[in-house]
Every structure is written in C-alpha cells, then in structure tokens.
C-alpha cells in the first residue's frame, strides 16, 4: 500500500505540490487526474525519486521512500513508466525488457519472464530482436508497460500511457492493466489526462488542482458526479 502524506514540492518559486495526501491500495488502480500543470507528473516523479520534495512523507508498505536514490527506489519494487514512455531506442525490444530484469531476476528466470510478457503483447514478438526505434506509438507503450511488468513490481506508476494513442489501443491497454492488477497485490497509480478511460479501469480516483488534492473518492462515485467531472475534468 502506498501512503502519501502532506507532500510539498517546489521548483524555485513555483509550488508544484502543496500538502498532497492520499492512499493507494494494493490490487487496485488509483487514478490521479486533473488539468495540465496540476502536478500529476511531479507527483509520480517525486515518488520514484527523480524529484526531491521539500516536505512530507511517502511510505510504501511501511518503508519511507524519500531520501533513497532513483535506482534504490526502483530496486524496492517500484516501476515508474514516465511521461513520454522512455523506450530506449538504441536497444532492441528484447534488450529493453532484459534490462528491467537484471536487478531482480537470476539469469535462469530472465528469459522465461520475458517470454511471459511477450505473450501479453503478441505484436511485440515480431520485433523482439529489432531496434525499439522501429516501433509505433502504441507498440512502444506496450513495450514500456511490458518492461514495467517484467520485474513483477509491487508499485506501478504510469504517467499518461494513453498520450498520442488511438482510442482502440488505449482501451486494450487499459483493459490489460485492470486484468494484471486485480487479484494481485500490486499497487497501481495511473496518471491520466484522458480521465474517461482512466476512470473506467480504476477503483479509486484522486483529482489534483494547482498542486492540491481536491477530490479523493471511489472512481465510480467520481465518474457519476457530473458537476465534479465538468469542473475538474472537462467532460
């Protein structure tokens, strides 16, 4: 379980996050929504250690995350798929996936894990030994999602996975995400601008506005509340 308490982040004079607090349960997808600039990406980057907060606490399964290096946080089982996906273009699909297994799986298990992930994304099989630069937008998203899952993370942070993708692919990915989460003890935090699709797969929703939490509730409740949706999410 992820517990964020009173998190404050500033970039010089700009206060990106102010006193953000929420909880994300295991086995569930928690959506973090809000307009551009609300602080959603900053939130994820602070959890994974790329950004150092001014104040507050981030506890995952009891362990404090703040103060650890980025690679240290990753090695605690936190997989952060950043904005812009972060496919390493110069490596092959297989190498991208293998990279994620190096710290957590012994050599014998790595190939099996990679095979498992490629079964989830059959379209990537054909590109297995090709450079990742050849992949389309949707295929890249599959790759980074697969790369995040291959290390069997306990906390999965996804930043705008649907960006630039066709609705059909987005729906497929979201469905897959929900499938992979339910019944496991993986905690998922999903940042999305496409609130509609995010709400359809999440169990819990947090809405940020200007760096502060304004709503924290069941996803279904938030989806049903027209006024809320119109005001903060634009639909």
């Amino acid at each position, binding site marked *: 379980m992820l517990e964020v308490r009173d998190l404050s982040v500033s970039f010089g004079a700009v206060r990106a996050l102010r006193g953000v607090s929420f909880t994300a349960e295991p086995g569930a997808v928690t959506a973090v929504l809000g307009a551009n600039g609300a602080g959603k990406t900053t939130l994820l980057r602070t959890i994974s250690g790329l950004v150092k907060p001014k104040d507050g606490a981030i506890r995952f399964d009891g362990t404090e995350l703040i103060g650890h290096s980025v690679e240290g946080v990753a090695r605690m089982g936190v997989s952060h798929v950043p904005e812009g996906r*972060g496919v*390493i273009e*110069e490596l092959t699909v297989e190498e991208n996936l293998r990279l994620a297994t*190096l710290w957590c799986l012994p050599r014998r298990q790595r190939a099996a894990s990679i095979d498992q992930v490629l079964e989830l994304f059959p379209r990537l099989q054909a590109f297995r030994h090709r450079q990742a630069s050849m992949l389309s937008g949707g295929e890249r998203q599959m790759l980074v999602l697969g790369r995040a899952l291959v290390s069997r993370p306990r906390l999965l942070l996804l930043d705008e996975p649907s960006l*630039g993708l066709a609705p059909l692919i987005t729906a497929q990915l979201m469905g897959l995400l929900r499938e992979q989460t339910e019944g496991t003890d993986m905690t998922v935090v999903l940042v999305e601008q496409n609130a509609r699709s995010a709400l359809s797969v999440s169990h819990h929703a947090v809405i940020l506005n200007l760096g502060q939490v304004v709503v924290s509730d069941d996803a279904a409740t938030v989806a049903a509340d027209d006024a809320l949706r119109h005001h903060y999410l634009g639909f």
Partner: protein
Amino acid sequence: MSLFWDYTLNGVASGMIYAALALALVLSYRATKIINFAQGAAGMLTTFIAFSLLTRGWSYWPAFVAVLLIGFAIGAATEFILIRPLQGKSELNPVIVTVGLLVVFEGLAGAIYGNASRGFPPAFSQSGLRFGSTTIDFSHFDLFILCAVLALMLALLVLFRFTALGLRMRASAFSREIARLLGVRVGLLLTLGWGLAGIAGSLAGLLVAPTSAFGPYYMNLILVYAFTAAVIGGLESPVGALVGGLITGLCISYVGGYLGSGVEPAGALVLLIAALMVRPEGIFSRPPARRV
C-alpha cells in the same frame, strides 16, 4: 610505388594507436558526454610508471598488465572526483577541468622523471617482418600493435553486446534517467566507463612509447590525432574510433611522407576542419533520437 606501401603500412600501424586512444575518448564521451583532454597525458603518466617498473627489474608483461590496471584506476578516479560534481552545470567547466588535469599530469611526470627524453623498450622486435626473401616495412612490433588494439576492441565488443554489465552500460549511456528508473546503478557504471577508457589510454601510451622520443609531452600530438579520429568516426562509436583512427593514421602518414615530416600536425588540422565542415557528427553517428 614501394614508398606508397611503406607509408600505407606505417599509417595502419600508427592509425591503430590513434584508434586505441580515440576509443578511450569515445568510451568516456559515451558515458558522460565529456571529452577527456587529459586522456593522453594519463596514458603518458602510466607509461612512465611502466618505465619505472621495468628499470626496477619487472619483466615486460607483468608491468604491462599492472599499468593497464593503474590506467583503469586513474580513469575511474577522475570521473568520480572531478567530473561527477560538474554534471549538469555549464558545458565548458568539465572541458577546462580535463585541460587542467592534462597540465597536472604533464607537470607531475616532468617533476618526477625530468625532461630528458628516454627510450622505451619495445615488447617485440622493431625490424621488419620477413616473407620469404622480402622484408616489409611492418615490424613485429607493428603487428603487436595491430593485435593488441583489435583484441581490446573485440573484448569491449563482447562486453557490450553479450553481457548484462554491457547492457547496463549501454543503457546508461543512451538514456540515463530511464536506466535509473529500471534499477540500474548508473553512477557506478559511468565510473566504470571511464575506467575502461583509462585502460585504452594506457594501452595507447605503451604502444607509442617505443616508437617515439618518450618525454612528458609525447602524447599531446597523439591526443589531438586521436581526437581527429574520434570526430571522423563519430564520438559515440567504438567502431568509428577504429575506422577514424585508420583514416587519420593513413592521412598523416601520407602527408608526412610526401610533404616531408614536420607538417603532419598542420595536415591533421586540415583533416579535422574538413571533417567538421562536412560531417561533424562523424561517420557512425546515431540518428538523432525521436523520443515518443
């Protein structure tokens, strides 16, 4: 015509040395996007250490290996102590730091060993190889140069393509932030990259020493030739370092041969300027990344 072949063989041998030092520049550049101008001087310093060991009675191969390891240590220490603190700040500062380090190494070598040029014993005979009754202008030592540099490149190739460590290093060089998010200890790998560069630099120093007057400044020209080679081949390409080294070596050999010795640096300058005007990113450069 036989002169042409002499110059060509000469150019290949010296080109391999430039390739080795260029490889060092490429390795450290790939890791940290910084050109280590002190790389040649570090190679010089380690070669002086080898010289000391040899005069103390060590035999050649143990001294050779020891000095390569010292080169590794110097390279790693340079990254950790001097370059790490400057990451992310202005582009000029690390350049100036490596230039300062160049001067410090030269000063140290001069202060400890004095200015007189000395001879460095070659590992193999420097007489030409004989095929039947002909002797070509390519000595046993030149063959050793060729083999040593190719062996180093092969070892690095195997490391980068086929090992987990190599994968991590490549990922760290291509995409530092993503690698960190995937649990890769990038800092350690950058230091390792500079350490490997140090090995290549030490090798270059050892290979040059027997063929030239060996004093504190002897690697300066080699460094700028290696820089030219790295630019021609592409600053992030080890294969480019090899190709660039050969091209540079051949050009300089022809310039020195046909236009007389002494103008090689000017010839190299023209070559460098031409390369920078025509294809500044080098022959084997990566296409600019499209991050989607």
